[in-house]
């Protein structure tokens, strides 16, 4: 499930981005040379998933999302993160100059590459980053086998 509410930016005469059309062409070429602005993932949330010996760690970018609006669940080997990013409400008498940020419901499932000790999963949110630690059960952790 992935539902996104797309709102369209209205560009005003002020807050001219320093990356105007001309500069965007410039930074595109810069990209090809390995410098300049990189584009970011369009999926929400963007995730990194790193595997280590005894655990794997999932990191998800969730700017503007409150902890209480996120749900994490594990079913078999599928880890699902879902929730809602509440839209920015415009105070009365205000108008948009730019509106580039998406809001709405989101959801993502990934299949884990290893078994998980479900009781020991921990999750925390800080500065718009969700971090889920998925420990492997003792039985599947790598171990050295000694020769007798």
């Amino acid at each position, binding site marked *: 499930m992935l539902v996104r509410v797309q709102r369209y930016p209205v560009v005003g005469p*002020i807050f001219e981005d320093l990356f105007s059309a001309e500069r965007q062409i410039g930074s595109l070429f810069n990209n090809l040379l390995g410098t300049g*602005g990189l584009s970011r993932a369009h999926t929400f949330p963007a*995730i990194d998933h*790193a595997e280590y010996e005894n655990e794997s*760690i999932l990191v998800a970018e969730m700017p503007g999302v409150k902890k209480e609006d996120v749900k994490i669940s594990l079913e078999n080997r599928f880890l699902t993160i879902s929730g809602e990013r509440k839209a920015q409400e415009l105070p009365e008498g*205000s*108008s948009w100059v730019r509106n580039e940020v998406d809001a709405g419901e989101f959801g993502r499932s990934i299949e884990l590459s290893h078994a998980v000790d479900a009781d020991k999963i921990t999750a925390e949110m800080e*500065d*718009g*980053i969700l971090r889920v630690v998925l420990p492997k059960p003792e039985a599947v952790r790598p171990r050295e086998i000694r020769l007798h």
Partner: protein
Amino acid sequence: MAKNNEIAVQQHHQSTALIERSEPEQFTMPPADIYETPEAFVVMLDMPGASKDTISVHIARERLVVRGPVTAFHKENASLLFNEIPAVGFYRAFNLGKGIDQNDVDAHFEDGVLTITLRKKEEMKPKEIHIK
């Protein structure tokens, strides 16, 4: 708003050279929501993974420059199964035009979103004109 989320805005009155020279080599541009109220402009930038201790907000000569370095999420020996988050910081700059009071800007960072409030100069605020 919680006081400990506030970020000091650094003002430069003489020149923009100081902030222009230091555009980072690699960065991503955070998406922005900007709205205008009768008294101010409010800029909100998505900067997940940056922190209030490392974000910098500079304002000089009608230019606003925001930087947000990020620290690495993973140890060096990690094998990455998904890797969608660029391991580079955030950077974005705007020309503000005239009409912003550069001495009356504040910023705070919460849930990965940097919010900057730029108040208008008195003469830019809307005024109601009464018809006699």
